[in-house]
């Protein structure tokens, strides 16, 4: 895994809404993605799961994930982008499958700060645009 390695996050369809920004219906539509897509839940032990881009392309990660779960599409972040945000670290554990990695939120001091970091991650990923959408 290197600084430019892309990390792929699957986005659940319910975390995506269209955001109409023009009075001309749907001509200038963008999507609003929930920051929850980039926040670990309490059950995740502060770990946000991602696919290692060295082992999965965005499309491959989508195919792997959707064997079991729903995904609207894939948004991605570079390792360097994640690690430029304070208190976040990328870890590669290859569990429960080879190519699994996660962003470790355990050093983020509070719930408020976790929400902020989740928004930052989302905004970086959204700026890149979808790396895969069926």
């Amino acid at each position, binding site marked *: 895994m290197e600084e430019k390695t892309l990390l792929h996050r699957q986005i659940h369809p319910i975390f995506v*809404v269209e955001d*109409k920004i023009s009075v001309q219906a749907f001509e200038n539509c963008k999507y*609003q993605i*929930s920051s929850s897509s980039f926040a670990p*839940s309490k059950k995740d032990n502060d770990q946000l799961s991602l696919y290692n881009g060295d082992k999965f392309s965005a499309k491959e990660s989508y195919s792997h994930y959707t064997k079991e779960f729903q995904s609207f599409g894939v948004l991605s972040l570079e390792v360097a982008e994640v690690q430029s945000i304070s208190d976040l670290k990328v870890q590669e554990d290859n569990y429960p499958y080879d190519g699994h990695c996660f962003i470790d939120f355990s050093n983020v001091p509070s719930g408020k700060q976790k929400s*902020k970091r989740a928004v930052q991650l989302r905004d970086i990923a959204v700026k890149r645009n979808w790396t895969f959408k069926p």
Partner: protein
Amino acid sequence: MENKIFIAPKLNGSRFEDHSLPLNVLEDFNALQSLFIEIAKVIYLEENRRRKRVPKGFSEGFYLKLVEIEEGSAIAKFVAAASIVANSIQFESSNDLNYFEKAKEKFVQLVESFNCGEELGQEDVQFLPYFNKIGKNLVDDESIDFGYDHKSKTSSKAILNKEIRNKILNTLDQKSEYQKDIELFALVPEIDQKNNTFQIETDLGNFKCKIEEYIKPAVFSVFSNYQKGAYILLNCKAVFGLDNKIKEVLHIDSVEVLNPLDVQLRISNLLKLKDKWFEGQGKAINKNNLEHFGSLFKEYYKPNLTLPAIFPKIDGNIQLEWKNESKNIIVEVELETLLAEFLYFDGANENDDTEMGLNLNIIKGWEELNRLIEFYL
């Protein structure tokens, strides 16, 4: 709880002469209670057309209590007991009992109309199935005067006996459907230009509708964005079967292309989530709680403010998000209590953030939310 008599039907017949009620006749009143609730809901929605659903706790709080059986055949006096709904904004519950009073009047009118041979309104057909149970246990010499005035001791024409009940049930057999005005959220997957019709896809089924000129632009617009999940809100008249399922959309009054952030639409979609919706985790959202939140949002969130995107949380609660350039607002709402956590921060300025609690169970909480949205966005 007031001890005001809600209804005092007079039961005539040899079984009632000792001013007592056999247990099986009391079962009929159980069905009557259910019918009052159903009619009250219909009346509420007719009088509050902005609302799609009755308020939280509307029907759960209502039940009939038998408090006395007066002499002179059996005059069964019932009070309407209403439990106080403590966790909703007060004004919502204060008028609820009026709807049940109106429901009772409607019911009495319905029975009277059968006695007088009057024509049944289309909208009343939906109430007839309840007579499968109401009056079921009456025998030949028995009747119930539902409009009896126990104060003036005056009889009414709202008398249910075996003959009238059979008349009602025969009418039910003949009328297998009824019409009702409804609102539907719909996708448009198909247009048939040759036959000038279009298909709508709704939670209640798929139906073919006629394309009228006045709805054409909206229908075509939404059709071309079907893959993006574009919705319309249809106001229409539909035909329902007695199973309360839509059989046909008769006529469309209006169509509105919906903002994808439309709160009622979003609520409708969030309610489709089942348990384990996210990677085997995730709790389905409680329908009553979410719809109650939706009613309050519609009532108190200022219409000129930017709509939030509403997302579910894995614990069964919701999160509202607003974004304007680098400014972000997140409001996490616990649906059971309507207590919320408000968080604002500017992504471009590390030190520009605010965090506070809000109580969306009170009007002041909504006023504060409106003020914060206006201020920070």
